[in-house]
């Protein structure tokens, strides 16, 4: 079957030779031989055709045996391949389309995230998608839609849920599992997605709306940024052969496999995982302005306090969505109280914004330690924003203040041996130091954090010690940071500044909470000045301190258990559970030395759906913090978390949602391959700076699973070869037959002569 396609040259020579020796062809003379020739030809045709069919069938059967897997050579354009279960074979990565439908009712938002898992290959796969959610979101529902059926998930202890899922996976049933990796990082696994099929997983979460001064905002993180997972320090000898589970002594990132999904290289593939977002805003007050910080949106205003916001078109999941709105002047309430009754308890959510200090603030000089992250993940716009933010901060220092600057990547430098007065010469030196920084290397955050927390004068009352920490938080060893802050915060206050298109807000907000400071986010150069000015307003103004709460009956379960200090413009947010919301609640505190108090009448609370979930989520956070600060033993903290999670149907570190379709679908002998959904690199990130030069895998990258082998097709679709050579083959074949006919006739004539 492997004949040359253009055999014209050899047959042409034969024809000339025959023509030289014979007079012009006369059919009547060669009639007998032509008849015999035609009979032979017909016979041959039948034989050939049947053998051709047989070969075709065999070839096709051979291909079918290869099942789902493809080799790099047979990959289709634009496909990202992942290593499959069989060595040398690869699985096409599934794609995920996501839709976010957000309903904001006053202080809370309920979001339905719909993820469609599409299997582009021709075999059965298990899709694994790592995705972010707001760090304070309470995930309480999951549904799986497969083959027109809807399966509602149950909340189970994590290990039990995993066992149910694995059992369903083995027996060929469709199943979905939602697990928490970090409070702002979740994994959806979907087993047994058929060839070309789409399985839809829908999760819902409840989260509070953030308020800061007049501005309310919500943030939907859309991509998990690649996180730096520090290597285990030294060699751990483990006597029983099992890997050490303690984060303190062993691997700083015990779950590194789960939190480092594959990442697409933007130089060789287009961003995927398209996202659509709809926000139905019921602000509860007339809305003056509404703004999306990083995405183009369409806004409709059906009534003064309502807005309908949609993305201008699907976007690739490579940066956070941020929407903020403000109240029309003089309509912003300084107090908000919302209630939900579930079972035999009332749940309350209270926002109280303390007034700005009336008296001129007492000028206490500050001792400011600025920490700036110049690791590879900060490369590009992030580094520019961090530098601009730090330059702004240095410019705001007063001569009486003292300051120091620390920079880190996988190494670190401290500008001065100890904090120095903010003289013009010292500030100029610091500005030059900052300006010369370049983003590269790993993110070893812990030594820098420890250096900043190291306070040589812990009892010095003349200065307020403040740490301003600028980073994208792209690390996977958050727990080590929390441990360090909890154990050595002393008198220092920690102000986190999150930089870039997708910062790790779990690290930022928990670190700020443990460090009794605030979290400011800077997502673009345009936000540097406004947000840094707001942060400095907080740094320079006295906080509302010594807050306490008096509740009628005294039987309320309040979270946060110890009320934090509140900075200018920020509301105090509390969630409570009590048998019945009656009477008046009194809040006391001090602003700049002046006493302040506020009374709330609990019976006036407006209805607020989902408040109980927020209370439970907040309590779980408290338990996690107590575990970090060793206020609770790990066992007690875990027991508290588990009880709350099962009662309120929430996904936590210890509980997962699992859904299993009753009907088995994959035959036992069909292979199932695991395929992690590759993520986009957050906007503005530099692939090589994060992962190192493209060829070999850098420490952050899991080389055994990632390895994008055949990546093609950038912005455009490549069109395949779409012409058959049927006509060419037919013509060539007929030509050859003609030559053969001529040769046969010529021979007959010669013999006759």
């Amino acid at each position, binding site marked *: 079957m492997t004949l040359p396609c253009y055999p014209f040259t050899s047959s042409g020579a034969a024809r000339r030779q025959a023509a030289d020796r014979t007079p012009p062809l006369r059919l009547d003379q060669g009639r007998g031989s032509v008849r015999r020739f035609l009979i032979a030809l017909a016979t041959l045709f039948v034989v050939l055709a049947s053998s051709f069919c047989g070969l075709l069938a065999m070839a096709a059967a051979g291909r079918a045996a290869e099942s789902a897997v493809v080799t790099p050579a047979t990959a289709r354009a634009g496909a990202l391949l992942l290593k499959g279960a069989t060595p040398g074979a690869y699985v096409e990565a599934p794609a995920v389309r996501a839709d976010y439908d957000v309903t904001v009712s006053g202080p809370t938002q309920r979001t339905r995230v719909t993820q469609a898992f599409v299997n582009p290959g021709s075999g059965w796969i298990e899709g694994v998608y790592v995705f972010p959610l707001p760090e304070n979101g309470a995930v309480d529902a999951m549904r799986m839609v497969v083959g027109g059926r809807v399966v509602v998930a149950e909340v189970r202890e994590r290990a039990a849920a995993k066992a149910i899922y694995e059992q369903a996976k083995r027996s060929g049933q469709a199943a979905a599992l939602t697990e928490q990796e970090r409070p702002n990082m979740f994994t959806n696994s979907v087993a047994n997605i058929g060839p070309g099929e789409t399985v839809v997983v829908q999760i819902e979460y409840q989260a509070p709306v953030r308020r800061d001064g007049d501005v309310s905002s919500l943030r939907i993180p859309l991509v998990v940024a690649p996180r730096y997972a520090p290597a285990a320090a030294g060699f751990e000898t483990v006597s029983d052969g099992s890997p050490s589970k303690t984060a303190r002594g062993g691997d700083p990132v015990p779950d590194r496999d789960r939190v480092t999904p594959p990442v697409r290289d933007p130089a060789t593939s287009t961003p995927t995982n398209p996202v659509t977002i709809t926000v139905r805003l019921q602000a509860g007050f007339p809305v003056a302005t509404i703004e999306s910080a990083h995405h183009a949106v369409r806004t409709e205003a059906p009534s003064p306090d309502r807005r309908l916001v949609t993305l201008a078109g699907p976007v690739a999941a490579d940066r956070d969505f941020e929407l903020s709105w403000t109240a029309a002047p003089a309509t912003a309430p300084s107090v908000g109280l919302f209630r939900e009754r579930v079972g035999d308890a009332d749940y309350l959510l209270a926002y109280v914004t303390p007034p700005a200090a009336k008296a001129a603030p007492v000028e206490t000089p500050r001792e400011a330690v600025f920490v700036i992250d110049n690791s590879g993940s900060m490369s590009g716009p992030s580094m520019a924003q961090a530098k601009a933010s730090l330059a702004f901060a240095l410019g705001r220092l007063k001569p009486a203040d003292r300051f120091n600057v620390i920079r880190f990547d996988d190494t670190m430098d401290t500008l001065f041996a100890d904090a120095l007065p903010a003289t013009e010469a010292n500030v100029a030196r610091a500005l030059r130091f900052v300006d010369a920084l370049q983003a590269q290397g790993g993110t070893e955050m812990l030594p820098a954090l420890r250096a900043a927390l190291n306070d040589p004068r812990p009892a010095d009352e003349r200065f307020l010690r403040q740490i301003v920490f600028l980073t994208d938080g792209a690390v996977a060893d958050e727990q080590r940071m929390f441990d360090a802050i909890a154990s050595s915060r002393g008198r220092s206050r920690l102000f986190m500044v999150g930089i870039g298109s997708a910062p790790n807000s779990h690290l930022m907000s928990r670190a700020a909470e443990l460090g009794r400071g605030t979290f400011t986010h800077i997502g673009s150069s345009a936000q540097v000045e406004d947000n840094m000015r707001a942060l400095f307003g907080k740094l320079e103004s006295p906080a509302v301190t010594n807050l306490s709460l008096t509740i009628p009956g005294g039987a309320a379960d309040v979270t946060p258990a110890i009320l934090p200090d509140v900075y200018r413009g920020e509301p105090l947010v509390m969630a409570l559970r009590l048998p019945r919301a009656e009477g008046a609640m009194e809040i006391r505190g001090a602003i700049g030395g002046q006493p302040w108090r506020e009374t709330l009448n609990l019976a006036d609370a407006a209805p607020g759906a989902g408040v109980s979930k927020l209370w439970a989520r907040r309590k779980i956070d408290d338990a996690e913090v107590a575990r970090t600060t060793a206020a609770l033993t790990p066992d007690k903290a875990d027991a508290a978390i588990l009880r709350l999670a099962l009662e309120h149907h929430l996904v936590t570190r210890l509980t997962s949602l699992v859904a299993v379709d009753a009907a088995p679908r994959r035959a036992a002998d069909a292979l199932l391959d695991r395929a992690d959904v590759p993520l986009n690199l957050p906007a503005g990130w530099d692939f090589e700076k994060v992962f190192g030069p493209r060829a070999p895998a850098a420490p952050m990258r899991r080389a055994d699973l990632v390895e994008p082998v055949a990546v093609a097709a950038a912005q*455009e679709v490549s069109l395949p070869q*779409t012409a058959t050579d049927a006509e060419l083959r037919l013509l060539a*074949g007929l030509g050859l037959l003609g*030559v053969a006919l001529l040769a046969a006739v010529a021979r007959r004539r010669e013999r006759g002569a």
Partner: protein
Amino acid sequence: MTRRLSLRTALVAVLTLAGLTLAAQGLWIPAKAALAQLLLDRAFARTLSEGRPEKAWGWADTWPVARISVPRLGRSTVALSGVSGEALAFGPGWAPGTPEAGDDGVAVYAAHRDTHFAFLADLVVGDLIEVTRRDGRTARFRMTGARVASWDRSGIDPNAAGRGLALATCWPFGARVSGPLRYVVEATEIEDAPVTASAERRP
């Protein structure tokens, strides 16, 4: 003389064999394309009724994903997933990484110019193109234009705004050898269109 005669007999036999093979292949390609469509049509009908992918024959490495039809020309063809050479031998291929017809973005289908997509040459701007999807929904498109592009610079962005359709085949139509140029028919979805006969096929 005997020696020359036997040489010539061998030559004739070889030429005949080669010619027959090539001619058989040349005839087999369009026959296979037509035969496969019959099987694919049945498999696609099963896909619609049972709501899951159905292969047209046991050893197929692809499966039907859509029916593309042009009512004015009375042409209809069942498209397969993927644009491998094997898939294109049997029907138009749905380019991977592009949305389903009727979803946001541009759905791309490609097929051979001398078999399944020969009719692209007869399409004119304004023609109605209907795509029945696996889920039974029929998306209706109106042809907006056609252009010739190089295979690797198609200018088709699958994530473009709106709902579009692109049908691609080799260009020029009459050529015997393959080249780098492609003929691309572009169409956009008609929204809120009146129900027609083809839409009644919905399950």
